């Protein structure tokens, strides 16, 4: 990966205020509302204070959105002809995709940090430094498959379909991950499906990090599985596209 190009690319994306409103503002507003209302209660299932559970949820929500939104960046760039411009530079197709995955991870990390800082500074959430770091790290590693989903959406979606495809994917994953409403108030079959959803384990991984407890084997297995399947799909689609060019 070309580090200087990646640096400029990240700086550019972080400056692009329009996309960041959704990535940063929505989870922060939700955190302030739910964290403020239920903050002091204790979640006996997660063995964490409700404020921490909400912070992890919103961190997952924002990071997931940041990673998935990379699909828009790619589709837009393709539609204005930027990708065509890049094809007459030394940047390879694989290099381009690696840069985009790295960009998704970088914007996702920024979102996680902002959410955690708001929780600490505004809502006075208490957790050990180790707890915060592990929660953030868990969420960050957990969004790897989401950055791959973004690449896959961008590969398949034309400009006019990117928006609905993103919405369905995002809303579905947010629901299955229990990021909006607790899964136990939803029909039983939804919680069953959720067991294989990457968003569910993203949230769990964040909670495990925050509590410094739990067995990371299952989330590693599910998220790693998603990562491999998505990477194979992307490589397959990429080869087919290049062959047809």
């Amino acid at each position: 990966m070309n580090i200087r190009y990646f640096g400029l690319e990240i700086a550019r994306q972080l400056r692009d205020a329009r996309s960041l409103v959704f990535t940063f503002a929505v989870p922060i507003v939700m955190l302030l509302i739910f964290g403020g209302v239920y903050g002091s209660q204790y979640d006996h299932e997660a063995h964490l204070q409700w404020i921490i559970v909400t912070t992890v949820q919103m961190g997952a929500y924002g990071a997931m959105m940041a990673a998935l939104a990379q699909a828009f960046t790619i589709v837009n760039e393709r539609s204005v002809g930027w990708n065509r411009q890049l094809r007459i530079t030394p940047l390879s197709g694989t290099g381009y995709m690696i840069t985009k995955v790295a960009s998704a991870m970088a914007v996702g990390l920024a979102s996680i940090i902002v959410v955690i800082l708001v929780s600490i500074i505004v809502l006075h959430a208490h957790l050990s430094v180790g707890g915060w770091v592990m929660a953030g790290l868990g969420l960050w590693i957990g969004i790897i498959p989401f950055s791959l989903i973004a690449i896959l959406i961008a590969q398949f979606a034309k400009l006019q379909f990117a928006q609905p495809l993103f919405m369905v994917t995002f809303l579905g994953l947010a629901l299955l991950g229990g990021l909006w409403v607790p899964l136990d108030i939803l029909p039983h079959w939804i919680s069953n499906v959720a067991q294989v959803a990457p968003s569910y384990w993203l949230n769990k991984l964040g909670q495990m990090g925050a509590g410094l407890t739990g067995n990371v084997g299952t989330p590693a297995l599910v998220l790693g599985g998603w990562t491999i399947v998505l990477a194979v799909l992307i490589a397959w689609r990429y080869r087919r596209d290049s062959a047809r060019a």
Partner: protein
Amino acid sequence: MDRAPAITLAGLSKKFGTLAAVSDVDLTIEPGEVVALLGPNGAGKSTTIDLLLGLAVPTAGSAELFGEDPRRAIVTGRVGAMLQGGALLPTTTVRESVALIHALHKHPLSVDEAMERAGISDLARQKVASLSGGQLQRARFAVAVLSNPDLLILDEPTAAMDVAARHSFWSSMREFTGQGKTVVFATHYLDEADTFADRIVIMNSGRVIADGTPSEVKSVVSGRTLSFTLAAPDETGLDRLPGANGIDIRGSRVSLHSEDSDATLRALLTAFPGATDIEIVSRSMDDAFMALTGSSTSSATTGKGATK
């Protein structure tokens, strides 16, 4: 400098389904040549450019730049290009977009120098989205010369430019070609091809139908056109003038094509003393183009300001 031709196309063909966009094109362009690629819409110019840059895979035949795979010439920065449908990022400033591409090249010019060469230093801080068509083309030219290439490929570089912008664009181009570099440009503007190229390649329906110097291409339509005003002109009589091989009468204005304009003129003055406002002009690039492609002038020039 190596001896390999800048561009070698051999039996190059590209089919989209049953449509043959490019058919069996053989073309060799030597270092230092300035070549215009001319042809009506759909002639296969842009597809040929995509193929020679390796952006599309040929159905048959091969394309090489400097005797190597085109991708290699791109990676080493020996070729720069301004493509149809290629663009900068609308949300960035001109400088940011140029700097992004700059970061990808191995031994590029500085961002400032590339912008200087394209004459857009004063636009550095402007948002790409706010540029006029001509300014955008020049910004794309800055990107094309960033790697300080030996070969420049320009697909309709002056589309969307007004007259003044075209003029200044071609003077920056002259600086570039003055250094002995190779330029291939596709254009709809016949006068641009005539003025700036030392070789013209005309394509139609995916094939090369003419290849030569501007004067060679123009000689396809030899002779001159005499035009004059005559009261109540009639083809009979006029068509028997020596050398005449075509008459077009519009009202009282007569256009007469001739293989030997001197003889035609002498006979005309004797036989038709009433002829006034006599003009004699060489057949133009347009005429040559029409004769070669068999298309009307309108379809050859509708590209003005549009990108298909």
